[in-house]
C-alpha cells in the first residue's frame, strides 16, 4: 500500500451531490454507502451522510466537461473515476460509464466507489493487483471484500477498529429467532399513553415509542405516528427500551431477551442477538454523553455498558438510587438530552436530572403537557433558556427542547 495523506479526525461527513442515470437512485445510494462501510468495518472511522451544506467527502458524477474539475473524463472505458487525497475530499465518477450493481456487465459502482473512497481517506495505489487499491478495475465480484493489503493500509493510517467484544458464542451466533409476529396494537394516544421507550436519535430527533408506533417530539410539536416497522424494518413493536449512541452511531432496541442494532434505519448484520449478560425485559436505556456509556435499567437496578470495550458485568445490576438520585424504580423510559440532562419517564410524569445525576426541583412534571404538547398552555414568560421553575400562572412549556422539525424524513 502507499499512504498519501490522512484526515486529522475519524468522524467524517459525506454528501452525494448527484447520481448516475444508469442505476435506480436507491441502488446507487446503497452502493455508495456500502463503499464507506468497507472501510469503517476495519478502521475506527465513522461516516455520516449529510444531504446539504458542507461535507468532508463529496461524491459526484461528471463527464468530458465539468465546471468544477479540471480533470475531464474520457467517455466509456479507460478512466472510470478519480479522487483527491485528504483533506480535500472530492470524489468524481465518469458519468459516461455504464454503472451497475449485482451484475458482471458494466462497471460496479460499489467497488469503484470503495476504491475512490480509499484515495479520499489517504491511500494510494497498491502493488497487489488483486487489492481494491490496485489501479486497474478487475470487474464485478459478487463476494467482494477488502484485500489484506487494503486493510493494512487503512489501519496504518487510522489504526485498528476496536472490536466490539462479544462472547465467543455471541460472535458465531446467527440471529437466534425469527421476528416474532406481533399482534397489531391499536394506535396509541400520545397524550394518555405510558411510553414504552424514548430516544434522542441521530441528528437530534427525539423519538417516542408506544406499542407498534413511534413519533417525534420537539418544541414545535409532535410528529405524525408511524409504525415502528415502517421505519426500522424487522423491528417489532411494544419495545422495552431504545438508545442511540453518538459514539458508535448505533441504535439499540431491546425487547424481551433480544437486542436489535441499526445504523440509522438499516439493521446491522447478525442482529437481533440474544441478551445474555443483562437481564431480559428491560425497562429503559439511555446514553450518557459525559462518560460515553450506555445505561440499561430494570426494576431497581442498572447496568453501565461500554460498547467498545469488554465490560465486566459481574458487579451489576447496581441500585439505580445509588447513582441516579431521586429517580423511581422501574422507569418506563429514559433518555439523555441535548442540554446534557437526563430524563426518566414513568406513568404520566417525568423527572429531569442535572449533570450531577440528581433530580431537579419541581419534578416530576406531566409528560403530556411538557413533552407531548397535549393541553393548551400559556407559555410562561420566563426568559427562555433560564431554568423554568414552576410559576403560579399557567403551565410552563419546558424550554429545554431545541426546535427540531417534527416530521420524520
Amino acid at each position, binding site marked *: 500500500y502507499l499512504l498519501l495523506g490522512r484526515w486529522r479526525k475519524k468522524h467524517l461527513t459525506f454528501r452525494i451531490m448527484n447520481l448516475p442515470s444508469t442505476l435506480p437512485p436507491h441502488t446507487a445510494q446503497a452502493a455508495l454507502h456500502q463503499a464507506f462501510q468497507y472501510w469503517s468495518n476495519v478502521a475506527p472511522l465513522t461516516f455520516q451522510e449529510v444531504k446539504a451544506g458542507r461535507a468532508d467527502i463529496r461524491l459526484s458524477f461528471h463527464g468530458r466537461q465539468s465546471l468544477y474539475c479540471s480533470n475531464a473524463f474520457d467517455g466509456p*472505458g*479507460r478512466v*472510470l473515476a*478519480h479522487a483527491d487525497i485528504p483533506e480535500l475530499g472530492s470524489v468524481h465518477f465518469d458519468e459516461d460509464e455504464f454503472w451497475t450493481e449485482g451484475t458482471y456487465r458494466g462497471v460496479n459502482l460499489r467497488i469503484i466507489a470503495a*476504491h475512490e473512497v480509499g484515495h479520499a481517506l489517504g491511500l494510494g*495505489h497498491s*502493488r497487489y*493487483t488483486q487489492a481494491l487499491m490496485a489501479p*486497474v478495475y478487475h470487474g464485478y465480484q459478487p463476494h467482494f471484500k477488502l484485500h489484506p493489503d487494503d486493510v493494512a493500509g487503512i489501519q496504518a493510517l487510522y489504526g485498528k477498529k476496536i472490536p466490539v467484544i462479544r462472547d465467543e458464542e455471541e460472535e458465531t451466533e446467527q440471529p437466534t429467532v425469527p421476528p416474532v409476529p406481533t399482534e397489531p396494537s391499536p394506535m396509541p394516544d400520545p397524550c394518555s399513553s405510558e411510553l414504552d421507550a424514548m430516544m434522542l436519535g441521530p441528528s437530534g430527533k427525539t423519538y417516542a415509542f408506544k406499542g407498534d408506533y413511534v413519533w417525534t417530539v420537539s418544541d414545535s410539536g409532535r410528529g405524525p405516528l408511524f409504525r415502528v416497522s415502517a421505519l426500522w424494518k424487522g423491528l417489532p413493536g411494544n419495545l422495552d427500551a431504545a438508545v442511540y449512541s453518538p459514539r458508535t452511531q448505533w441504535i439499540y432496541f431491546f425487547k424481551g431477551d433480544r437486542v436489535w442494532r441499526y445504523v440509522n434505519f438499516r439493521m446491522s448484520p447478525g442482529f437481533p442477538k440474544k441478551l445474555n449478560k443483562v437481564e431480559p425485559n428491560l425497562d429503559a436505556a439511555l446514553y450518557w454523553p459525559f462518560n460515553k456509556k450506555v445505561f440499561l435499567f430494570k426494576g431497581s437496578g442498572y447496568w453501565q455498558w461500554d460498547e467498545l470495550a469488554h465490560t465486566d458485568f459481574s458487579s451489576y445490576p447496581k441500585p439505580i438510587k445509588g447513582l441516579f438520585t431521586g429517580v423511581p424504580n422501574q422507569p418506563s423510559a429514559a433518555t439523555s438530552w441535548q442540554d446534557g440532562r437526563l430524563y426518566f419517564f414513568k406513568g404520566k410524569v417525568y423527572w429531569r436530572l442535572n449533570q450531577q445525576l440528581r433530580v431537579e426541583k419541581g419534578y416530576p412534571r406531566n409528560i403530556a403537557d411538557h413533552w407531548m404538547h397535549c393541553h393548551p398552555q400559556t407559555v410562561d414568560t420566563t426568559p427562555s433558556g433560564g431554568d423554568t421553575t414552576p410559576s403560579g400562572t399557567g403551565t410552563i412549556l419546558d424550554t429545554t427542547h431545541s426546535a427540531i422539525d417534527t416530521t420524520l424524513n
Partner: protein
Amino acid sequence: RVPGLVEKEMAMEYLLQYGYLQKPLEGPNNFKPEDITEALRAFQEASELPVSGQLDDATRARMRQPRCGLEDPFNQKTLK
C-alpha cells in the same frame, strides 16, 4: 500516420499520465530511450506481465483496461 506510431504515442501518454515517465522539467517531451524502457519495465512488473521493456501486445492490452485516474507509485525513480 502509421498505426504503430499512434499506439506508441498513446502508450507514452499512458506512462506519463500514470507516473511511470517523469515529464522533464525543462524542454520538450523527448525522452531518452532508456527512460522509456525503464518506464515500460516498471509498468509491466506492476501489472504482473512479462518484463520485456518493449511495447508488446500484452502491455498495450493492459493499458486499455478500465482503471482509476490517479497516478501509480510503481516507478521508484519517478515516485521520488
